[in-house]
């Protein structure tokens, strides 16, 4: 997956990401937002294990990866570059 960059807006406890190149929006609900934020922190992989049931976390990671919001980074994850608006 090529590195994408997103613009982002936080609305209440949700985040909307805009992929400006493709004009596509991605809605992260409160749960997905927590997973996504954990991916962007040091020790994120450890933190992911504490956030909820492993299967649910895994499904959310897959969805985020498909959306281009995160990518594999060694044994963990990293977030695509984000510009907060």
């Amino acid at each position, binding site marked *: 997956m090529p590195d994408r960059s997103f613009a982002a*807006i936080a609305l209440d406890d949700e985040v909307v990401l805009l992929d400006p190149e493709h004009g596509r929006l991605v809605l992260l*609900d409160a749960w997905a937002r927590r997973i996504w934020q954990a991916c962007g922190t040091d020790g994120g992989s450890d933190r992911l294990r504490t956030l909820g049931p492993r299967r649910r976390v895994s499904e959310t990671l897959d969805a985020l990866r498909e959306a281009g919001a995160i990518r594999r980074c060694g044994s963990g994850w990293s977030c695509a570059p984000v510009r907060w608006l």
Partner: protein
Amino acid sequence: MNAAQTIDVLLGTWIVRVSGPPSIAPHLAAVLGSLRIEGEDPAPLEVTIAADERTALGAVAGRPLWSVSLPAGRGLSVLLGQVVATLTSLLERLLFVHAGAVVMEGRAWVLLGGSGAGKTSAVCSLLRRGAVYLSDELALLDPDEGTVVPATLPMAIKPWTAWAAGSLPRGREVACDGSARFWLPMERAAGPVRAHAFVRLGRAGRAARLVPLSRAGMLLAIAGHPSSFCYRHRVEDAFVGFGRVLRTAQCFALEARNPAACADMLVSAGRATDGPATLRRRAL
């Protein structure tokens, strides 16, 4: 002799020059005449309707932009759609979304829905209950001010719209086009009004419900709808601007077979000062 007429329609800061046979050109001018554009400076539009009323051309600043076939008896509706679409493409600061809008209790409500969703009939019902008209099809938003700007074109009342609405609000018929009547409500907003609520209209089962929708969900709904998001050069403007307006707005989904029949529900929500609890009513 059916000599072409040329009419310059001054719509605030926007000029539309209409040229064509007297059987249609003055009617288009009349339908456009109630629109006022402020806070933007769109390039002038020239609409030229062929003598046989079967085609029309649109040019902006002398550059041809579109040509369109005019169906017999429905040319006015098509031309109005072209003019509105042209306006949306010329906006540089204001945002648009395909939606109706009214003022209730001094605050603007934007009703978002696709064609046939019941926007016009819902707007009619709300106007009959004391709301003030902002727009029928084209909601203009000022993202810097967080307001809805009046776009007071006449409502296009089709037979089924009239049936769903029950009766029309006070106003006058500006023109007609086949079975559609262009109806200009009497009570119209004179200036921008703070955007208070966005309602996504959707068809649903037996029980009509007005339920809260997240602001992020509404942003996605707007993006999936004809809006400033449709223009590639405005996607980021739309993202930032709608996001900014939504930050202070309430958002709902109205699930109903006939949104017009839920006007009382919307009026009740409009009178509420805080966020709505889920409102329900019996099957309609």
